[in-house]
């Protein structure tokens, strides 16, 4: 690839974009410019064959681009001074050549602004030498002017950085300014205080705006200069927690760092990061000017993820540090801030582990205790039940015994009664027997037959037993019953016994 050509194409693109008031990529994308520098198309067909260039683009920029490519190949001849005798250059070609050569003459110049003419896209002004009144015409694109954060006023002393350039339509030489900075601590300090006041009024420094640096951040964006110990300091202190660190090397010194820092921030904005760290080692108030730039401060304030600013400083805190979500003084503090949550997490987990396990152990102990208590209670209950049962059993045994006893008693009684009964009965029988015998004796003693046998007889008259003399009359027929029959007799006489 022709790097020289690519640089020329880039310069052309930047100018064109500034003139049109558009972003550079809207003219041609990076890739397209690189392809042009690679292919070096010499006509429309070849150019349209490049991806990203169509009819519309060609119609707008085709001729200019082809001229640059052609010019580039002719420049070599120019430098070699070939053909100049026979074929003089046109004014236009020569000015093109001069401008291309003068890009190499970049310079920093200091002076006092002596006139200002602010246009829509560009500011024309002149810079006067403070000693001998020499003057150089200058111009600065409006976008660069805004970026500088400096208000151009006649008499303001500034340092300009840029390259000389001849404006072809009038052949005027101007110093094309890429960056501008104020001169002298006093002026810088004044601008700083003004801006600080402005941001303060806007509430940009308010605590409520600050976002917490996220715990367990893993994707870290770093913008800093590769030079110096800052990056090493940071990396030494961040620890090994599997961080994914994306670093952009940026200029951090002086006013010219602003554009670089802005580009870095813009690039970082598109990266997937959890936190952005902007770092710079300590420096004088003047050397930290970039970090007091209004545009940069606003970019930091509006950055998509929390920003840590680690910018070493003296008395005056850089505005970027003030507006950042966290402003610290050294890269090591920034690093330890980020890894703090990781370190704490380990302690946190160990503490939680202890708490949870201990607490559960405790509760298990408690449960064990209450289980043994329950067991005790159940034991007591069951004991009391067994006791009751024993009591009841005993009662039962006693009552059974009682019952048995009473049964025995009854039986005994019965036996006794039976005996008594027998005895009584026997007695009765004996008595009856006795009676009978007595009766028999009586009866036998009184049996009339016995008397008859003994010789007694029974006298009857008309079946009436004669007991007295009175019962009979002489002549009566009287029957005499004797032992073995009857004697019928007649009464012949009767006599009363002498008394």
């Amino acid at each position, binding site marked *: 690839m022709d790097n020289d050509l690519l640089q020329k194409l*880039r310069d052309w693109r930047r100018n064109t974009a500034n003139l049109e008031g558009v*972003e*550079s*990529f*809207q003219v041609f*994308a*990076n*890739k397209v410019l690189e392809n042009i520098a690679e292919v070096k198309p010499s006509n429309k067909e070849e150019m349209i064959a490049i991806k*990203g260039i*169509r009819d519309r683009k060609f119609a707008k920029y085709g001729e200019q681009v082809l001229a640059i490519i052609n010019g580039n190949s002719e420049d070599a001849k120019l430098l070699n001074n070939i053909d100049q005798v026979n074929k003089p250059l046109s004014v236009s070609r020569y000015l093109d050549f001069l401008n291309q050569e003068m890009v190499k003459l970049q310079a920093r110049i200091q002076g006092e602004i002596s006139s200002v003419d602010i246009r829509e896209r560009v500011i024309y002004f002149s810079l006067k030498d403070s000693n001998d009144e020499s003057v150089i015409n200058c111009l600065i694109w409006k976008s660069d002017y805004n970026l500088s954060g400096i208000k151009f006023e006649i008499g303001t002393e500034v340092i300009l950085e840029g390259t000389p350039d001849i404006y072809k339509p009038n052949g005027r030489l101007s110093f094309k300014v890429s960056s501008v900075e104020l001169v002298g601590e006093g002026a810088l300090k004044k601008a700083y205080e003004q801006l600080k006041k402005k941001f303060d009024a806007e509430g940009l420094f308010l605590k409520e705006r600050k976002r917490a640096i*996220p*715990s*367990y*951040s*893993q*994707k870290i964006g770093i913008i800093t200069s*590769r030079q110096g110990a800052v990056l090493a300091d940071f*990396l030494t202190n*961040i620890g*090994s*927690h*599997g*961080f*994914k*660190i*994306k*670093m*952009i*090397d*940026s200029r951090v010194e002086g006013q010219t760092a602003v554009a*670089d820092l802005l*580009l*870095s921030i*813009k*690039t970082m904005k*598109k*990266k997937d990061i*959890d936190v952005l760290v902007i770092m710079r080692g300590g420096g004088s108030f003047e050397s930290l000017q970039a970090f007091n730039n209004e545009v940069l401060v606003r970019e930091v304030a509006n950055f998509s993820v929390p920003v840590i600013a680690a910018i070493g400083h003296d008395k005056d805190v850089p505005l970027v540090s003030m507006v950042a979500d966290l402003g610290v003084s050294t890269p090591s503090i920034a690093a330890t801030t980020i890894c703090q949550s*990781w370190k704490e*997490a*380990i302690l*946190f*987990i160990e503490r*939680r*582990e202890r*708490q*949870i*396990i201990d*607490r*559960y152990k405790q*509760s*298990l102990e*408690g*449960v064990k205790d209450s289980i043994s208590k329950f067991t005790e209670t159940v034991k007591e209950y069951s004991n009391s039940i067994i006791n009751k049962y024993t009591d009841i059993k005993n009662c039962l045994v006693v009552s059974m015994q009682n019952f048995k006893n009473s049964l025995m008693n009854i039986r005994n009684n019965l036996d006794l009664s039976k005996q008594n009964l027998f005895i009584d009965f026997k007695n009765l029988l004996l008595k009856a027997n006795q009676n009978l015998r007595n009766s028999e004796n009586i009866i036998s003693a009184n049996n009339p037959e016995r008397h008859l046998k003994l010789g007694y007889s029974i006298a009857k008259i008309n079946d009436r037993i004669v007991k007295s003399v009175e019962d009979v009359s002489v002549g009566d027929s009287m029957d005499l019953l004797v032992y073995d029959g009857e004697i019928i007799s007649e009464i012949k006489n009767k006599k009363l016994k002498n008394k």
Partner: protein
Amino acid sequence: MTEDTKNLNQNLKRLSEITEWFDNQEEIDVEEGLKKVKEAVMLIKVSKSRLKEVENEFEEIKKEIEPEIEE
């Protein structure tokens, strides 16, 4: 935030919740407690392994001189 740090964050939060649960219980339901202890042990294990030393990745990226937008 990456998936595993998000998980780490959630794990630690969950551990706090479990701790709080234990602290707030007058009487711990042993079954419920066991469930929580099991969960906690798992979370602790996962988190600890995440918190082990892991090498950092470092990448230097280039500024995009001009933002790229394809037509």
